[in-house]
């Protein structure tokens, strides 16, 4: 078990810089998820911590030991790969026990530990099979068993679930989370699936183009996105964005765009001068059908109702542009009908047009 500290990490391939001065601290026992769009450098970061990729600049320490130049095998780290990377010429049991056999751990001890992890992951009946005779989910479990048996200080997962079907992905996600509750090993988990990140993480590190855009708990990231990029990346269905003009009238501040007029508490935001142009973000899941006399109601004409089972995403034409909101009371809604929906002032996000940063005051 250990804390991880990355200081001024840089990585370039040839002259092409992929990661620029990245600083990151991970506490002992923490479950951190690297999240971000494809190509933002999540895997590169993970592989540098693992020692599989040279670090161009900066230092990585694991448990207060500088490991920047150590061989991957000397860092006390175990990794689970997206492709599982099981050894095809060995049985499941040999795959799991390889690391211990190599370290000349006594035979009886190996047998005991193999039995233990195989029991935890439900692999007892497959121990003598070759990996190619296992299903994808079983192979994934073997890969996890192989990582677990070494009792590493740090677990690294690089998109371990992305080759599995949705149901199995959900189940293994829960299993990984439960395993972490038991073992409390510090874990870094890479994914580009924001739902997976939200459900599994203690803390999400959201990356964009080789830099950290925002980090925080899943609810911080969801409820208080620091930038328009984060707001857009997190949440499904995706957030609605509208360019608005600020209108100050005495104590109250309104954001106006066509027929839309949203009132927000001025004290919670910075830089809302009269006439300023801003970008307003409204989460579909935070909006619902408006009741009579609701504040911040938006009206439009229904284009489409997408049934998602217990609720539906309603796509509405507002001033010629599409917006969407989510409601449970969708059974009576029909395309073509006029509709009116509203949002709490506390859920309105305002971003600077120039920097994309949130204008909401911190705290």
């Amino acid at each position, binding site marked *: 078990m250990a804390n991880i500290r990355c200081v001024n990490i840089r990585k370039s391939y040839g002259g092409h810089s992929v990661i620029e001065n990245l600083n990151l601290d991970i506490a002992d026992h923490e479950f951190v998820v690297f999240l971000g769009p494809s190509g933002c450098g999540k895997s590169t970061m993970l592989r540098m911590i693992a020692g*599989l990729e040279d670090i161009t600049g900066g230092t990585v320490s694991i448990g207060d030991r500088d490991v920047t130049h150590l*061989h991957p*095998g000397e860092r006390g780290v175990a990794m689970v790969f997206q492709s599982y990377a099981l*050894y095809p010429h060995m049985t499941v049991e*040999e795959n799991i026990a*390889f*690391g211990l*056999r190599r370290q000349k751990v006594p035979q009886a001890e190996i047998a005991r530990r193999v039995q233990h992890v195989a029991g935890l992951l439900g692999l007892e009946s497959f121990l003598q099979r070759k990996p190619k005779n296992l299903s994808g989910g079983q192979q994934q479990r073997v890969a996890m068993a192989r990582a677990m048996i070494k009792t590493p200080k740090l677990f690294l997962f690089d998109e371990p679930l992305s080759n599995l079907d949705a149901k199995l992905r959900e189940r293994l996600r829960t299993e990984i989370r439960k395993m972490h509750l038991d073992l409390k090993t510090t874990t870094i988990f890479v994914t580009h699936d924001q739902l997976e990140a939200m459900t599994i993480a203690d803390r999400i590190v959201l990356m964009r183009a080789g830099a950290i855009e925002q980090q925080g708990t899943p609810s911080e990231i969801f409820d208080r996105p620091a930038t328009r990029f984060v707001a857009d990346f997190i949440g499904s269905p995706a957030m609605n964005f509208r360019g608005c003009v600020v209108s100050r009238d005495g104590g109250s501040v309104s954001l106006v765009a066509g027929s839309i007029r949203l009132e927000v508490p001025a004290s919670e935001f910075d830089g809302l001068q009269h006439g300023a142009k801003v970008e307003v973000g409204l989460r579909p899941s935070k909006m619902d059908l408006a009741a009579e006399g609701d504040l911040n109601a938006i009206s439009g004409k229904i284009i489409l109702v997408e049934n998602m089972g217990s609720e539906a995403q309603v796509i509405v034409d507002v001033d010629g542009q599409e917006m969407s909101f989510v409601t449970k009371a969708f059974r009576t809604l029909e395309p073509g009908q006029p509709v009116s929906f509203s949002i709490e002032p506390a859920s309105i996000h305002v971003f600077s047009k120039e920097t994309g940063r949130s204008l909401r005051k911190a705290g």
Partner: protein
Amino acid sequence: MVRLIRSSLARIFLALMVFVALTPILWTILGAFKRLKDIVTPVPKLFFSPTLENFVTILQNPSIRQGLGHSVIVVGASVIIGALLGVPAAYSLARHVRTLKGDLQFFVLSLRFMPPVAIAIPFIVLYLDLGLYDTLAGLILVYLVTTISTVIWLSVPAFERVPKEIEEAAAMEGCGPGEIFLKFSLPIAMPSLFGALVFTFVLVWNELLLALTLAAGNATLPVVAASITSLGKEVPWGVINASTVILVIPPLVFIGLLMSFINGMMKPARR
């Protein structure tokens, strides 16, 4: 019903093809056990009293026995040394060389472009000066050009097919580069490497021209076999058939041995 007819037609066609392909071989094997009078009959004989005479003749013939010995030494040495040098070279090419990789591979292949005669004549001159002419060592040296380049050329793709993540997973368990090569890349690539080795073996086992020009005094089996066919009018067909069988047996045995070796490698010994 139509499907049944079609599938049985396909089977009959397949059987016919196999028959056509195998008959000459079977006929040769049968011929190896026949006396000359059973071979030179107007009506081919399927039933005859078999004899081992032909094999006895061959194996008692000192030049054939010697040829067999020479072949085994020359081909064995050049294939083994070729594999020992070529396989690791192919691995480094596949894994560690980025720049010039294509050029290097092409250079290796280009060693096989030259016709054997073009290699033979300069080598005769060189070997006469070096005292290697008509020696087995000289022949092994020339064959090494063939075996190393063929092994490299065929092994690079075999190693490229080994997933990189497997080597990385092994590195995460603490294995160094040598251990990764011996315990992971080599056994995983082995089935494809095996094909490369067999191909290389057959290539030099059947080699005639270089053997004829560079080591006629220490003739290998193909050279001896070639000389038997020009014995004159009284062609000893049975002996020729038997020598063909003998020529073919070593590659078959070699393939069989390698196969069982591979199977052993794929199941690492349990301690």
